[in-house]
């Protein structure tokens, strides 16, 4: 890599390019004939004011960061280590020891990686997406380049058809449910047989590759990836707002939108996001392409206060609301299935239906049940608290565009629960981390024939029960506190004006968050008792 020997911090100069003074040169004959309509600015400030991070939180203003972000190799260097690790996971899972705790593939995937992904999600947002080896691999192939900007993409470059794309992140939720069901079936994350983990990774990489070759940009990451909806929703708690416009007026009056279409310096946004209108970090993959391709140096990498992307957006999405409730259902299922009551009920059901764990009936049943309960609560709340004189605004015909009184209540209530859902997923990963992460050392040693199940590190627990449960409950408590706060604020802004009893609406939203937190905590205690 080239080491740069100059161009250090300096006072911010006027942005380039600067046009010549009028009248000195022959006018461009095309420009003379172009008379674009004025862009609409009505409602612009009001729409984005709550979500625009302050200028002071733009880390790209720092010249060292700017230089890093400008470097085309940055993404490659973020992806490369993960790429190496995951090809190692595949190979060692198939060829290495069959002891799951001693196999590097299973050990790093389930004791460390999955937990780290949740930490990154909660703290940053889509940090994982910026370094993901699955999408990264597909993208290298699709672009026929590791880091260079190329023009001739490999593959068909299709768009995801609208009848499917209209469901937004729900497709990703569906693939997460499917993957989790497969994982439960083969006990992949247990971890079970190491080759199962290998085949799972091979499955993800190859399906990613198929989608990257069939569709344009990061259609896979945006719509299909099993983790996309989870990272997108839970990542809203994160403190990185993503790449956003520095001066919205420059973006609105930009006639070329290189950040979306690409230029010689960078690709168009692979995530279908425009920095000029991003109001949350939901669909910013932190890939730096917009930063590189903007001709006006008008894009910054902004930090934000935690929970900003949960509370602030004025354009809330129905798909995200259902994603929250379904993901909540999934994590509750995972907690419930570790209890004695479930074990006996599941056993009876399996005998009756001649199935085996995880019986898709109770798997889907519990998840759908929880999601529908959340929907039901929202429906009851709006029946009780909605003001009769509030009219439902007209909507479109697509799934995301339709409007109803139910949606007006359900969506804000679910957004408010994001922190408790995120905390619950995070807490779920803690036992494996605390109990087994030291096994990584013997697992690496096993490559060289040095690791053994008798090693002291193999049997070392960073924490043991009941301390782990205590930590889990503390995590849930923190998440619940955050969710109570976000629900209270969201309800104050979005639900109070719709409600005949504004205070009751806010209390109900906060109460729902509290109830969810309590339920999760109690389940952890019951799970511990069961084990």
């Amino acid at each position, binding site marked *: 890599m*080239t*080491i*740069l*020997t*100059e*161009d*250090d*911090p*300096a006072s911010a*100069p*006027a942005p*380039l*390019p*600067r*046009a*010549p003074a009028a009248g*000195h*040169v*022959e006018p*461009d*004959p*095309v420009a003379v*004939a*172009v008379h*674009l*309509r004025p*862009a*609409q600015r009505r*409602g*612009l400030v009001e*729409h984005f004011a709550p979500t625009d991070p302050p200028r002071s939180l733009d880390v790209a203003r720092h*010249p*060292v960061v*700017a*230089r890093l972000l*400008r470097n085309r190799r940055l993404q490659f260097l973020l992806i490369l280590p993960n790429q190496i690790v995951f090809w190692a996971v595949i190979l060692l899972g198939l060829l290495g020891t069959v002891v799951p705790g001693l196999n590097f593939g299973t050990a790093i995937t389930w004791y460390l990686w999955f937990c780290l992904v949740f930490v990154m999600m909660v703290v940053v947002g889509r940090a994982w997406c910026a370094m993901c080896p699955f999408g990264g691999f597909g993208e290298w192939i699709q672009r026929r380049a590791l880091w260079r900007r190329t*023009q001739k993409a490999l593959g068909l470059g299709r768009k995801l058809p609208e009848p499917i794309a*209209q469901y937004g992140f729900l497709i990703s939720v569906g693939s997460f449910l499917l993957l989790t069901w497969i994982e439960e079936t083969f006990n992949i994350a247990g971890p079970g047989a190491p080759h199962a983990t290998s085949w799972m990774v091979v499955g993800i990489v190859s399906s990613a590759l198929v989608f990257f070759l069939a569709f344009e940009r990061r259609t896979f990451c945006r719509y299909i990836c099993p983790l996309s909806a989870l990272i997108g929703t839970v990542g809203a708690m994160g403190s990185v707002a993503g790449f956003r416009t520095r001066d919205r007026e420059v973006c*609105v009056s930009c*006639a*070329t*939108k290189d950040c*979306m*279409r690409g*230029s*010689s310096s960078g690709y*168009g946004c692979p995530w*279908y996001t*425009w920095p*000029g*209108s991003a*109001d949350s970090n939901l669909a910013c993959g932190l890939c730096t392409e917009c930063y590189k391709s903007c*001709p006006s140096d008008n894009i910054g990498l902004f930090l934000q206060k935690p929970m900003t992307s949960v509370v602030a957006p004025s*354009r809330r999405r129905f798909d995200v609301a259902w994603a929250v409730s379904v993901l909540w259902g999934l994590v509750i299922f995972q907690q419930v299935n570790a209890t004695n009551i479930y074990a006996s009920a599941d056993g009876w059901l399996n005998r009756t239906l001649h199935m085996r764990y995880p019986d898709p009936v109770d798997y889907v049943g519990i998840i759908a049940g929880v999601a529908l309960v959340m929907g039901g609560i929202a429906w009851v709340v709006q029946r009780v608290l909605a003001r009769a004189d509030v009219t439902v*605004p007209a909507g*479109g*015909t*697509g799934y*995301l*565009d339709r409007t109803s009184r139910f949606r007006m209540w359900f969506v804000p209530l679910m957004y408010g629960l994001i922190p408790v859902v995120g905390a619950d997923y995070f807490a779920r990963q803690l036992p494996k981390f605390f109990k087994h992460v030291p096994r990584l050392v013997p697992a690496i040693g096993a490559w060289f024939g040095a690791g053994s199940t008798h090693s002291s590190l193999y049997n070392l627990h960073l924490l043991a029960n009941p301390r782990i449960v205590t930590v889990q409950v503390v995590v849930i408590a923190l998440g619940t506190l955050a969710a109570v706060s976000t629900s209270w604020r969201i309800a104050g802004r979005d639900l109070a004006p719709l409600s005949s009893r504004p205070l009751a609406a806010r209390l109900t939203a906060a109460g729902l968050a509290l109830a969810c937190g309590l339920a999760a905590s109690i389940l952890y205690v019951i799970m511990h008792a069961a084990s």
Partner: protein
Amino acid sequence: MTLAPSRPTDQRDPAHHAGPMVTVLTDRCAGCQECVVRCPTGALGMDPARWVARAEASLCVGCRQCVRTCPFSAIAVEGPMLVAERSALAAASPSSLPGDVAETRLGFASWDEALAEAARCLDCPDPTCVRGCPTHNDIPGFVRALAARDLDAAHRVLRRTTVLPDVCSRVCDQALQCEGSCSWSLAGGRPVAVGALERFVTERAPVPPPTPAHAALGGERGASLEVAIVGSGPAGIAAAWELVEAGAHVTVYDKAAKPGGLLDWGIPDFTLPSAVAERPWAQLVEAGVELRCGTAVSAEDLERLAAENDAVLLAHGAGVPVVPKVPGVDLDGVEDASTFLERAHVALTGRTRLADLDTAAGARNSAAVVLVLGAGNTAMDVARSARRLGARAVCVDWMDERFAPVRPDELDEARAEGVDVLFSSTVVALEGASGHVTRAVLATTRQERRDRRPEVLAGKTSVVEVDCVVLAMGYRTDTSLAAGQRDLPVVKSVEQYPDRRTVASGILANPAPPFARHQPVGRLALARESARVAAGFARAARVWVAGDALVGPSTVVEAMAQGKSAAVAILAHQPRRPGVAPLPPRHVVVVVDSVGGRTRSAATVIADILATTGASVETCRVEDATRSVLARADLLVVGSWTEGLVVAKVGPSRATRAFLDSLPPLPGLRSVVFCTFGVSPRGTLAAMRDALAERGAEVVASAAFGPGKLAERAAVFGHSLHSELWPGGDLDADLDGASRRGALRVVER
């Protein structure tokens, strides 16, 4: 003003949805408003609550401009295009072909027809037709004026970009240019008949003559310039027009006896009547352009012209015919197309006959047979002229008809006039008696793909009795005229990352509309544009080249656009012949590559100081320094940061190197280089200087700025440039003696 397109109610299906249906895919719509600002009818707006585009279906006419311009493909339009039928133009069908020179294509017969067609124009906010037009006529602008029945205004709009509207409207292949790029065409429909509308303007009101008063726009920009132009074809006409209007003294040399070049002898009267072809030169001579016909210019003459004039423009065309390597091609009776067309033009307009054809016909007691080698547009002109001379005409071309580059309308017209066009057929030998060609041996060929060379099939030959053979297989540029033409012709090319505004306009989004014969109109436009821009760069010191001389055989409109481009460059650069003091720079372009901001700061400081001279100063990143930006520069400042490993591989940044490597020849261009560095610049400045000098640029100053006191050092350098290049100018900064010495030191580094 938006012209209301006709909305015939019968196109709406009352049983289903009325008119086109617009769907905004809100999951992908990022609210960027690219569709909103470009919608011709204002059917798109923003939903302020969700900040996504919202369509008002009742205003939509189905032109699909939004679909082509949406960066994320987040909008879909289904349903009919609500536009009236394109007006059909009458074609003349002469009762007796021999001797007939009347135009075969006619324009609109009445105002009503023209107005109905004008009403089909959507007056698009980002008109793709303008990009498709090689000279970028403001088509919606003149159509708007025409619709308001203001022909003077229409001429004023056209004059900004063309001096041959009457010619171009007759000879252009609009399907691959303006009409092929019309929104309706890109949407799969039939475009506005732009050519016919332009012709209507010129038929109802004559093209106004050049007038130095027109220079009111730019003042007497060329008052003291003396320019020699070699060649009086379309490129020479456009350049002379532009220069004489700016007040320059223009002398035009042509080896032919009459001016006009290709317009005079190359295009038959049935396509371009003599009265139209002669109009430009009548007006130019009247306006004071000195015309020296019958004067061939040799390489030595060119040196003399360059010494005596401030600038020379070579626009002598591509006159060297491509001669096939077949036996008998040197027999009498074998001639090239331009010779034949010239003789045919004289014979037809003089109402005489071609003596040799007559003799041949007399000897064989039947119509003479003219065999035309080639079946392109020139070949059609030859064959149709031959038909008018009373001969039989046979065209042979070894390409498959499916892949032949001939205009389908011209092919149809030629066939309707009785021309035999044999595709997949080639001449393998010409045979003669007493030195005169009498027979041609033809072989069959096969071509299965457009990009494959046709192959000659063995054994399948036939013989045709001929009286005259005309070579119409293309022309090459004569590069013997001057040094600096070694790398000619310029290849028209599309950059890997095309102009961003062109991409945004959506012209590239439908790569092959049916009306454009499934040709990639957007890429064709970009390729033509590369040649137009290239014409703005001098090929040798004070020598510009335009038209077919620059790019090889091309079209009238492209030659005209290039001639104008060269003239604009001459006026911008204001070159001075040897012995006359050069003017200080007037158009400074500062190109900078900065990674952390220091180089950019230095560039800004220098640019601000140079701007105090009154020169226009344009500052841009290396990525944005396109050729059209560079063509304007008479002082080029290049700034780079220093890349490398402290001592190893130290040099200009990668992007700067790429920029310098991509530069065209810049003979005589004054230039300045500077760099910023952390430890040592080592060979950075030398590398930059060498790259510019290699292209003929004159590097007048260079400087390297180390860590610390950047703004101060850049200011000192800027001021030293100021005093060096603008002698006698006001140096408004308070530079003391020490700073001046500092400036010199900086410059010497």
